[in-house]
């Protein structure tokens, strides 16, 4: 269908699926491109029961799904390039919805590079895709509601979840609990699934131990610290939006999120964005933003307007979420001078200290210049030093030479 495509949606998570469904329902010819082998994004990986209604909606309309394709470059306005295992595809469009989601924020601490220290969502993804976790001792740590969902999931698969360490204080969490009113049934269900698992607020991992792989962690809470033996550490500090593609297309970024108007349009005409990419807000916000973007792209502005109230409610929850799980300053002093900050290039903290910007640090140390292109260390150096990435250059990801010359 190539040239006849009217809307391209990048990202097949909840926001992308909602956008594609609404746009296709209103007559647009839609394609969804995603780098994963199947639709659903991270949260609906494997197509869980609670997502059935959305998978059915997307099947009920005529939408082309392009899976396993990683967008890496803009050839010209209106055309993106994506790499697949078999080659490169040119994706033409009149409008595009960027629903590229979020990734976990990782912070460096001694031992965090050891095998079996993973993201919270990282370990969950591995278990969802075949890793047996039964009987394994797991410490879940970091920050954010994802920790609870991951702990409950792992426990349901037979893991021995030793504890959940949340860096936010009990006071911050209490305010969050009050604001959770609308999500009360979800919260109670999680509580039931996690019965008996200690949940410690104001607590974090200060060190991971082991030589060839993880053997245990040191936990810190107030002045107390203690050691726990474990097989896996699932550790992530809330989420950060994936804004690289939006930046590449020239969209304005504000507070690390893609800036959008009331109809989810970015500062570039016909480029929309929805979901975590526009700010971390959870599943329901992603869905309603996706719907609004899809409707707006199809020219159905009145129908989109009808969803504004739902979005406003969800945004309030998002604000509360982000205030609650703001990172505490103590986490800035976990690393020793020898702790690696950039895992791709093995750049230690001491080599970064003294530089004035990330650009300067990059030029001198190669921090952020490895295969991940700063996707892991970028949010860490922002937290540690206040450095911001200045630009995104194509290709956004390491690709085959043949993809660049498009043979």
């Amino acid at each position: 269908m190539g040239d006849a495509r009217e809307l391209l949606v990048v990202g097949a998570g909840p926001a992308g699926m909602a956008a594609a469904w609404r746009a296709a329902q209103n007559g647009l010819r839609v394609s969804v491109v995603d780098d994963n082998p199947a639709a659903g994004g991270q949260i609906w990986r494997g197509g869980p029961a609670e997502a059935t209604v959305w998978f059915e909606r997307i099947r009920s309309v005529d939408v082309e799904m392009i899976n396993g394709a990683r967008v890496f470059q803009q050839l010209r306005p209106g055309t993106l390039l994506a790499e697949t295992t078999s080659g490169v595809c040119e994706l033409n469009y009149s409008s595009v919805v960027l629903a590229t989601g979020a990734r976990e924020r990782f912070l460096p601490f001694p031992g965090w590079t050891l095998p079996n220290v993973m993201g919270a969502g990282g370990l969950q993804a591995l278990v969802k895709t075949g890793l047996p976790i039964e009987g394994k001792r797991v410490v879940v740590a970091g920050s954010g509601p994802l920790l609870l969902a991951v702990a409950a999931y792992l426990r349901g698969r037979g893991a021995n979840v030793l504890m959940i360490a949340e860096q936010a204080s009990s006071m911050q969490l209490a305010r969050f609990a009050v604001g959770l009113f609308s999500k009360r049934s979800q919260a109670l269900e999680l509580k039931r699934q996690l019965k008996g698992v200690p949940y410690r607020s104001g607590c974090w991992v200060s060190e991971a131990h082991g030589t060839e792989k993880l053997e245990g962690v040191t936990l810190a809470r107030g002045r107390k610290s203690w050691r726990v033996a474990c097989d896996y550490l699932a550790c992530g500090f809330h989420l950060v939006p994936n804004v690289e593609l939006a930046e590449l297309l020239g969209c304005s970024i504000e507070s690390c999120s893609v800036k959008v108007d009331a109809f989810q349009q970015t500062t570039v005409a016909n480029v929309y964005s929805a979901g975590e990419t526009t700010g971390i807000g959870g599943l329901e916000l992603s869905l309603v933003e996706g719907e609004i973007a899809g409707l707006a792209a199809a020219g159905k502005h009145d129908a989109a307007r009808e969803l504004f109230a739902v979005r406003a409610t969800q945004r309030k929850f998002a604000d509360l979420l982000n205030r609650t799980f703001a990172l505490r300053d103590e986490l800035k002093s976990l690393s020793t001078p020898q702790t690696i900050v950039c895992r791709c290039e093995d750049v230690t903290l001491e080599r970064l200290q003294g530089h004035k910007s990330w650009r300067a640090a990059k030029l001198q140390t190669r921090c952020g210049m490895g295969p991940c292109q700063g996707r892991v260390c970028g949010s860490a150096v922002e937290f540690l030093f206040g450095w911001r990435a200045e630009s995104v250059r194509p290709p956004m990801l390491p690709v085959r030479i043949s993809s660049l010359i498009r043979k």
Partner: protein
Amino acid sequence: MSETVTLAVNGITVEMPAGSMVSAAILKTGAHAFRRSVTGEPRGPLCGMGICFECRVTIDGEQHCRSCQTVCRNGMDVRTDG
């Protein structure tokens, strides 16, 4: 989902449910170091979603494949660099 696929990780045969990722198969064999970092540290998967590039391995002779984004296939030959 009783269907399974069989592949080899560093010469060890491993059976996985169909649809599993190579990263999970590697860990199932007991291997934990997927690669060595530029200074020789052992590394394994971190993000599980194709962003960190820590889970790179050699699959059927092709280097630098992200094992967390690659679905297991029958007869696959996976080599870690750990």
